[in-house]
């Protein structure tokens, strides 16, 4: 898995290195004309990780790769793809790591089980305390 990620990173990075001197992809710094589509693209971009930055979404980064991903998101939204399809496409390419929005799955179920447990625990704690006191 690690080797796979590394090779993907290298594959993606090598054309990027060559591109550094070229102007960024057109829609990296350009909004879509349709405000509703731009809003959808913006909402999606805020939940995608910039893979070459530390803890930033692609909507918050000047990194060339973030710019390229913004371009991809915008043209795909413009061509009518749904945000979930685009997220799926990116996750397929880069793994779950690219999405800030964890989905319930084999590797992530505790993220969703723990809040439910916490709710029950908090409820039990409060009930016990209140019942005893009242």
């Amino acid at each position, binding site marked *: *898995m*690690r080797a796979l*990620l590394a090779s993907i990173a290298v594959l993606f990075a090598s054309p990027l290195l060559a591109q550094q001197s070229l*102007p960024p992809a057109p829609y990296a*710094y*350009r*909004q879509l004309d349709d405000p509703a589509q731009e809003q959808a693209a*913006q909402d999606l971009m*805020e*939940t995608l*990780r910039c893979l070459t930055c*530390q*803890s*930033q*979404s692609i*909507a*918050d*980064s*000047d990194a060339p790769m973030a710019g390229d991903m913004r371009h991809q998101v915008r043209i795909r939204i413009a061509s009518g793809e749904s945000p979930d399809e685009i997220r799926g496409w990116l996750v397929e390419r880069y*793994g*779950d*790591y*690219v*999405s*800030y*929005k*964890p989905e319930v799955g084999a*590797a*992530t179920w*505790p*993220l969703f089980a*723990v*809040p439910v447990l*916490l*709710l029950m*625990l*908090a409820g039990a*704690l*409060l009930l016990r*305390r*209140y019942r*005893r*006191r*009242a």
Partner: protein
Amino acid sequence: MIAELGLAALWLAAALAALQLLTGALAVRAGADGAEIAALTRPAAVLQGVLAGFAFAMLLWVFAVTDLSVKLVASNSHSMKPLIYKLSGAWGNHEGSMLLWVTVMALAGGLIALVERRLPERTMQATLSAQGFVALGFYAFLLLSSNPFERLPVPAAEGLGLNPLLQDIGLAFHPPTLYFGYVGLSIAFSFAVGALVTRQVTPDFASAMRPWVLGAWVFLTLGITAGSYWAYYELGWGGWWFWDPVENASLMPWLAATALLHSASVLAARDALRAWTIMLGVVAFSMSMVGTFLVRSGILTSVHAFAVDPERGTFILFLLMLYIGGALLLFALRAGTVTEGTRFAVASREGALVFNNVMLSATLAIVLLGTLYPLLTEAFDVRVSVGPPYFNPVGAIFVIPMLLVMAVGPLLRWRQDGFGRISRELALIGALILAGLVLFAVIGGIDLLPLLGLALAGALAVASFLPLKGRKLRRTPIAIWGMVVAHFGIAVALFGMASESAFSQERLAAVRIGEATQVGPWTITLAGVAPVAGPNWTAIEGRIEASYDGGEPRVLRPQARNFWAPPQETTESELATRWNGQLYAVIGNEAGDGRWQLRLWWKPFVTLIWYGGVLVALGGVLALIGRVLGDIRRRGFRRRLADRRAEALA
């Protein structure tokens, strides 16, 4: 010479911490017979503080004169840097910031040794001993694995410079502020351990601990607020909170300290929640240490990077387990002997405070889980990201009920009350929330969370002043004012956050000089572009004329900077602040055909986020003043009472 003086002071301070640990522990064991040995503990703590402060001053000195034979200076400073950034560079790196950490800890320890006279002397000895124990671990870490005073065999010709993002006035004050908060909580931790050791968990213990928690909490609040504003204007994309692990590392101690503050108030006023207060005292400082571990061990860049150079990380991890594990073990052994104290009803001030304590703790657990989970899976070679789409809704499950109870709780009486008595206030709060929901839903296009935030903020703002109803304002205790202001601050910040996410408008545009574009109510004209130079950078500076709603234009000058030591590009945003929000302008690269990239945002009421934070801190300061004045007055009263008794007996 200067560096060696600093190092020597540091070793001496470590030795004094060991002495303090020893004499404190012996004095606790010996009880009343240990007066002689106990007399050593307080002076040791004070001297330790002085020596650590001296060592830190020596570090500032070598940075101020850019002594390039010191490794830390050579790798983090540069002779061409402005003096203020030379000084702030002293703690803008691992070793320096850890020295700052132990210095603050030693100074705080010295201060309690000097001023705290309320607690039984035996508890005090145990507290100082615990403080010495914690400090000793961090001295060991500093001296054995992160010596800030290390010399280079051959002095460097020039320093490597400081990360340009960090060359900002925000950085000069942000980390020290946070560290005052982090480390202030170590005092709460030591008090908790001390009280557990001697089984003296009393209202007096809570009132002795409370000013320290309040002080630490004020610093944390200010530190988080300033850090958020710094990220907002420095990173150049208009975001103000990223749920970044480094940010979470400062939020977690804040959440724990907030809970601790409120539960200590219950203990001080009503002698209830004893075990819970102790537990939170342990948790709060544990979160400070977890935060330090996350930021300082390098684990955040990658678990694998951490595994490659594990020395520092393992050291802090060891300290973490030693202190947290030790304190929890002590708690487990003693918890049975600490009863929960006085009883109370659901509908009471304590009832509401307990509810919110549980909600705060649950929120803390969510933030901790979301921060650590990706690190955990990465250790198993599965990489996941947990970000705003997780933290916001899941956190809201616990935060929204908490905010509701926060509006109502201060209206309830201690011990036993009924909701019937405050039915009019409840109706008012309910009506305000409903009105807010309807009003903002009619505007339309607002997501659920911002909508709830806006409605709750309005109701909360009004509700926070209700506790003043029926009071004579002039005779209301300062501490009550503190609560009112802090709760109002939460409402203000909440409104800012919700408004930012509901109403922000963005415009990315490539414009020629002389061309105009629109963002929200603003008309933006790029009037010119010129090269400028600073002490260690060159930049392209845009001259932007911004006119709000057709009014008189204001000139903004955002820059795209190129630093040369080390080489890095940054964007310097420019802000136009109005009472109802901020225009945020960034200039990017030339698009190639004579057009320039502009990034513009109109963010209505965004400034309320930080004004709110400052109000919360101000509330904390007022509460602190109120409590300290109250203590002084009570002390005088007790002394007079004792005098009178002595007279009567005579």
